[in-house]
């Protein structure tokens, strides 16, 4: 039997490079306190505006804080907020989409209308409105991002379940005495899972950008907690005086998002989703 799909994705060159970067960022975020020689929130004004050096690999910001340290702690904020938000979004989207497709009728129409309505706005707009209502901060950002991506997963799950409902193996399961719960949780949702998970992987990349955007506007994690967006915001005033302050967080966001997309593509190829949905001759 072959290795699981997430590992098979690493056999593709781009998937391997992307996976390596993501593993690096993840490990750095998890073990941040062990890896960083400085504290992320202790200011040291004499050390302000230092360019990259052997003491400060990526330089320091306007308060003399080590950029690498803040970047690593920022990974904690950015990744945990984005991933948690997408996880919430996937869970709620699957519940909503499955319920709509399974029960049909007025529930389906209601869910579809609301979802299509939010689908018609850009994610950033929905997120901004929600943060404005909830208030800035980590929790607000998380909720805002999860609602912004809810429509995507609801639609995807609903479409999957609707297609699968008509499949012969569902009729076969029913003819052998399977009940509603077994059909829904044993057959329909597992079959719908693969495309939704790949969608979640790709959406996490978008969510990191969205989180950074909200942070850049000062609506994300509040100082002194570092976030990649917040650091870029601070650096934007110093582009000419200390370009590294905005450069490194920006590069990190860009590389991480590209890596997630590349790994997601490799995962799609490894899962062979289309072939899996069709088992025909």
């Amino acid at each position, binding site marked *: *039997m072959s290795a699981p799909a997430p590992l098979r994705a690493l056999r593709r060159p781009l998937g391997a490079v992307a996976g390596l970067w993501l593993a690096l960022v993840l490990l750095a975020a998890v073990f941040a306190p062990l890896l960083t020689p400085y504290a992320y929130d202790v200011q040291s004004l004499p050390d302000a505006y230092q360019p990259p050096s052997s003491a400060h690999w990526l330089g320091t910001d306007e308060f003399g804080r080590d950029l690498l340290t803040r970047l690593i702690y920022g990974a904690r904020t950015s990744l945990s907020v984005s991933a948690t938000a997408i996880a919430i979004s996937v869970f709620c989207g699957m519940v909503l989409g499955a319920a709509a497709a399974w029960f049909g009728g007025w529930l389906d129409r209601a869910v579809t209308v609301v979802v299509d309505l939010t689908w018609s706005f850009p994610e950033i707009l929905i997120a901004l409105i929600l943060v404005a209502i909830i208030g800035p901060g980590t929790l607000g950002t998380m909720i805002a991002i999860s609602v912004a991506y809810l429509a995507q997963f609801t639609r995807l799950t609903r479409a999957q379940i609707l297609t699968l409902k008509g*499949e*012969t*193996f569902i*009729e*076969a*399961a*029913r*003819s*052998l*005495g*399977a*009940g509603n719960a*077994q059909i829904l949780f*044993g*057959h329909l949702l*597992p*079959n719908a*899972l*693969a495309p939704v998970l790949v969608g979640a992987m790709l959406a996490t990349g978008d969510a990191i950008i969205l989180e950074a955007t909200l942070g850049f506007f000062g609506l994300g994690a509040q100082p002194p907690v570092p976030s990649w967006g917040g650091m870029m915001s601070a650096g934007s005033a110093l582009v000419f005086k200390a370009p590294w302050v905005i450069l490194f967080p920006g590069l990190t966001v860009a590389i991480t998002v590209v890596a997630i997309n590349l790994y997601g593509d490799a995962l799609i190829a490894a899962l062979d989703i289309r*072939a*899996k*949905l069709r*088992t*025909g*001759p």
Partner: protein
Amino acid sequence: MTALLEVDRIDVAIGALRLLDGVSLAVERGQILGLVGESGSGKSLTALAALGLLPLIGGRVTAGAVRFDGQDMGAMTDRQRRALRGRRIGFVTQNPMTALDPVQRIGAQIDVVSRLHLGLSPAQARARTLELMTQLRIPEAAAVAEAWPHQLSGGMKQRIVIAMALAGDPDLIIADEPTTALDVTVQAQIIQILGALVRDRGVALLLITHDMGVVAQICDRVAVLYAGRLAEEGPVAQIFAAPSHPYTSALIGCIPQEGMARGTLRGIPGTVPGAAAFPSGCRFHPRCPRASDLCRTVVPPLTGTGPRVACHHPGGPA
């Protein structure tokens, strides 16, 4: 001996369309009843009615009754009917290519039936699954049980579907065109397997097909369905020797024979009428060589004691 499955003059309707009109069938233990007819004649509907699954496609039994082992299925609760399906009635679907869940291993899909209906532990269920697979002549059963559906051939998948139908140790198997989607050579194997099941286990088999050749090969009785009504029903030997209904003789005429001259294989002109526009009188009259004015106006009743036939002008080959 009363029949195991008794379909007693049922009418089935979807919305305002009356699709089955007074269809009666009986299948006994150890017997194979072939249910034949062209596409759209109501074969699969009859199967769904016997399984109590008509609501799935929005249909309902409006008259008559389906009795399983003497019990009226229409009077049962949903829960009782569900307990019957898989446990006492096994169902083999039409297309094995899509009848298996693509994201579950083969073995698990068979296991679940005996765990659900016989209350076996996972280990017992797996042992039973492997035993069934071996009986169905699946080589290396243990390896196949760990495989995914897309790794198997069509004939192998159909055997798995049959194993699923057998896992609950049913008394009746309903097979809806089990060989239509398969290669001719594989078809013969599957038919052979089904025939052996009836002989060895004494189960009853309702075999839905549109292939009169298959019927001649293994069935004990045959019921010919046309446009939602029974045309003829009786023992295979008698009906094949002397078909009374012109539709039956036409169907038999569609079987290729050895030594047939080129161009002599007959078809039946015309098509099965749609349910929205069934002809008056005998529904076969527009395609029938023997049609008379009587056929156009009066519905022929099902008469006879041996083979029963619904025709105003029964007789030998048309």
